[in-house]
């Protein structure tokens, strides 16, 4: 314990390891220091100056980036500190639109909360020029409103470091500094992959999803439309947080009940087509291995990742599984199989996807995803949008009695449940591939090597006589590391799962927003994944091919996995994309 650092914070002695910051030490001493630009391990730049403390130095110091040193004496709540913090906050407010009433982040806004905590009594303590910024709402997934931006740069760091995309950054300087794309083009004309991680990083309402709930309300109010909804595996693990339930509460039953109250005609489960994806993908993998196809095969469930691959690693397009993502498969199946069964014309059906994801909004607009002559999916709303719809409909979510998904496309397995966590698709695929290849029943279902939050997970898996080298990456920066190692010839794999968001879909760009401070206590990637693994463990069926609905759809409709009909409905193709999309425009 010799290299522990002892320091005093507000008179309390505390010991921290070398490398700890004063903010870390304060947390350990149970002293709360307000922060705003700080996002652990992602944005540690000491820019906003909310966390300043007295250390005996000439000026106040930002606790979030100040290394703790031996015998340091820190004061966090002196008159000087309180005055400085409040002034800094009032200055931020003087350049903020303060339209809290109509802000999507009201009551879930770190700036609003600080104003309350620091007892700001005059939200116009400083007045002066405010620059009016145009709204950038041309992207199908993300809306940028710089009138609310506080220049904390959490989005910038997230885009650069966790996603290795880097399409936004500070431009101009001084008071004119704003977070923009290169050449101020709309986000839609950049290499943005639509993952929405920037939204989750934003402490205020400067970034939000492009809302499609108005479109969904319109569909629900249209008497001529049969409106069918489906929900992704990760939604149920997080929706409860919007209604005050602890992180990691599984609210499947209440969610289904709420969707019925909202007026959806059928409530189907994307978990069903997650199982279907496994049938198709495992079969595709085995085919590629047997027929010397392109390996490693890489999963294609995550549209953020698919966008990333097409834009930054187009040479890996042949490696992408041709399987559509589960909700697109569901859309295609609803407008064919369900339409036939229910004697409804596909044109009269609207498919709404509730997704943890903002990239799905871009995906749904892809022209190639229209198997029946109509878009497979008509509207995509995020978990957050669903919560807002439930609230605005006056539904008392917490008191709802659990209900089940509708029959036809509502069955699912534990394998599908874990799709929402990083490594889940891999694990689900391995469970099924094992039994297809060996013809034996898999005894140990849990593949622990592919679970968890390690940046890149690797495993050698024995499927009978076949030995598979697999890898799992989550967050596109980790995907970049993995792909670079393959490009360099340092690594070879047979099968890879990549999810665009860190932690997988449970931490998708459409999920309930967790404040920077709450993230320190409860990592949503861990808690929400736990809910999914618990669901898996408690299911009757835990392998996709055991799903009775899946057996039925192949018997009645699709034939075999990878059959001609399956290919027509459930598979797709990809296109290389220009990183500098504004150029495409200027050329044409």
């Amino acid at each position, binding site marked *: 314990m010799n290299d522990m650092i002892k320091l005093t914070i507000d008179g309390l002695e505390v010991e921290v390891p070398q490398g700890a910051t004063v903010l870390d030490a304060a947390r350990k001493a149970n002293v709360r220091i307000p922060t705003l630009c700080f996002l652990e391990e992602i944005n540690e*730049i*000491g*820019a*906003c*100056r*909310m966390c*300043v403390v007295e250390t005996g130095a000439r*000026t*106040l110091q*930002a606790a979030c*980036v*100040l*290394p703790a040193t031996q015998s340091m004496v820190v004061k966090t709540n002196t008159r*000087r500190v309180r*005055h*400085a913090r409040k*002034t*800094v906050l009032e*200055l*931020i407010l*003087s*350049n903020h639109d303060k339209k809290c009433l109509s802000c999507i982040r009201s009551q879930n806004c770190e700036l609003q909360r600080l104003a309350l905590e620091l007892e700001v009594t005059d939200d116009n303590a*400083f007045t*002066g*020029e405010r620059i009016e910024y145009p709204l950038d709402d041309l992207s199908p997934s993300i809306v940028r409103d710089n009138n609310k931006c*506080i*220049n904390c740069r959490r989005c910038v760091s997230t885009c650069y470091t966790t996603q290795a995309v880097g399409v936004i*950054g*500070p431009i*101009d*300087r*001084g*008071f*004119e*500094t704003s977070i923009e794309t290169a050449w101020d083009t709309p986000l839609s004309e950049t290499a943005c992959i639509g993952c929405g991680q920037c939204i989750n990083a934003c402490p205020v309402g400067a970034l939000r999803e492009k809302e499609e709930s108005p479109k969904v309300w319109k569909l629900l109010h249209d008497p001529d439309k049969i409106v069918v909804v489906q929900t992704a595996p990760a939604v149920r693990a997080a929706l409860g947080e919007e209604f005050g339930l602890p992180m990691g509460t599984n609210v499947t039953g209440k969610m289904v009940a709420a969707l019925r109250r909202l007026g959806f005609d059928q409530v189907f489960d994307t978990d069903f087509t997650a199982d279907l994806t496994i049938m198709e993908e495992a079969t595709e993998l085995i085919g590629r291995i047997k027929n010397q196809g392109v390996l490693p095969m890489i999963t294609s469930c995550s549209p953020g990742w698919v966008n990333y691959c097409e834009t930054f690693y187009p040479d890996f397009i042949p490696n992408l599984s041709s399987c559509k993502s589960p909700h697109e498969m569901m859309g295609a199946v609803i407008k064919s199989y369900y339409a036939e069964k229910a004697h409804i014309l596909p044109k009269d059906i609207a498919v709404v996807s509730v997704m943890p994801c903002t990239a799905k909004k871009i995906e749904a607009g892809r022209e190639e995803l229209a198997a029946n002559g109509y878009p497979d999916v008509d509207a995509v709303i995020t978990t957050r949008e669903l919560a807002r719809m439930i609230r605005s409909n006056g539904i008392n979510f917490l008191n709802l009695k659990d209900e089940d998904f509708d029959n036809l496309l509502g069955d699912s397995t534990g394998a599908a449940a874990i799709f929402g966590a990083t490594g889940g698709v891999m694990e689900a695929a391995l469970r099924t591939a094992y039994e297809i290849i060996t013809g034996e029943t898999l005894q140990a279902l849990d593949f622990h090597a592919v679970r968890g939050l390690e940046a890149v997970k690797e495993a050698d898996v024995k499927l009978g006589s076949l030995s598979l080298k697999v890898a799992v990456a989550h967050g596109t920066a980790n995907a970049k590391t993995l792909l670079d190692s393959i490009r360099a010839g340092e690594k070879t794999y047979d099968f890879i799962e990549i999810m665009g968001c860190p932690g997988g879909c449970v931490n998708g760009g459409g999920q309930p927003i967790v404040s920077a401070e709450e993230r320190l206590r409860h990592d949503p990637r861990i808690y929400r994944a736990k809910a999914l693994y618990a669901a898996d463990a408690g299911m009757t069926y835990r392998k996709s091919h055991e799903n009775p609905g899946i057996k039925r759809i192949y018997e009645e409709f699709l034939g075999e996995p990878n059959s001609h009909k399956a290919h027509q409905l459930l598979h797709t193709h990809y296109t290389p994309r220009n990183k500098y999309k504004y150029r495409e425009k200027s050329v044409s």
Partner: protein
Amino acid sequence: MRPRDVIKTLKDSGLRGRGGGGFPTGIKWELCAKSPGEKKYVICNADEGDPGAFMDRSVLEGDPHALLEAMALCGYAVGSDEGYIYVRAEYPIAVKRLEIAIRQAREYGLIGQNILGTDFSFDLHIRLGAGAFVCGEETALMTSIEGNRGEPRPKPPFPAVHGLYGKPSNINNVETFANVPQIILNGAAWFKGMGTKRSPGTKVFALGGKINNTGLVEVPMGTPLRTVIYDVGGGIPKGKKFKAVQTGGPSGGCIPASLLDVPIEYDSLVEIGSMMGSGGMIVLDEDNCMVDIARFFLDFTVDESCGKCTPCRVGTRRMLEILNRIVSGHGQEGDIEKLEQLAESIMDTALCGLGQTAPNPVLSTIRYFRDEYDAHIRDKHCPSHHCKELLHLEITDKCRGCTACARVCPAGAITGESRGQHVIDTEKCIKCNSCIEKCRFDAIIKV
């Protein structure tokens, strides 16, 4: 001399950083030398950006070899084999001469591999600044060399521990380095023979403004301001009255006549609310409005703020807006207090030196010329008759009706019969002063 002897000589000499901070150079080198790490960098800050200052430029253009020699000495002392000179692109001659000097030094084996047959190697690169004042801040400078947007990083960790590319680095300004070879040649005692105990040596100032002899001035530390202004500078032109001297560039402050006998030293200047800075010295006379001077310097720092931290990005801007309204006659009771409150918070919370010192010109003028602020705010009057919007031109009864003023007025604001009293329509008057210059009878006054 062993590396530690070089450092000891430098420490003994008492040389302090000439870039503004006044940190003891020997101690800085020692920190870097002791910092663990195989790879270390020596950096020269030649991003001289204070308006009107060109001390470093004169060294870069006049004696670039002094700098190269000092940087090699520094490399030897701290254990570095690579240096960067970060010079502003607006100094093309300096850049050209540096390039020539580096080439010459390489030819003579004074930099490069195995210098003078020893096992010490040291080479240099030039990096051009892109016109951002903040890149003179050492961490912003290093961030810029690394190819990123020139923005400061929090300190600690200091460059000696975590500098360029995360390696221990020693960074000094041009003038500091230029002192080093002479100190090594002549010894610490020689250097200490000049200047004062706390600030040995000499300092170069860029003397400008309302002064007869403008240009670069080198004086021993401790010389009183009065000597520099009246003896070296030759006093104020046109018999005007001295009002203040602004030292330390946009981060410095204004020193009034009552303090002209203060010796020029790092610490004494800070005590009276200004600073040495890199050596800018601008003399102001009775025609200068001190509120407007504060506004001028703050306008510079607002423009040059990088925008990273809140207090500098927004706070200095809010201060500038208050000053703008004061000089335009819209000042309100409480504005001075608001300026002081903002200044206090900005100095206490800004991320780097630029923001922390930006309020200095405002605070020092409030401190010594508060009555001018009061006159602007309460009486809507600029005592120096400088602020146009608070100014009226009037024709007194000295007017002989010669009509010269009416003919020169570009706004057609002056009317009057020939040989009769003329009057100025203040609504039309644009306060260009053409009439005042034209009038042979001193009949037109500013009120």
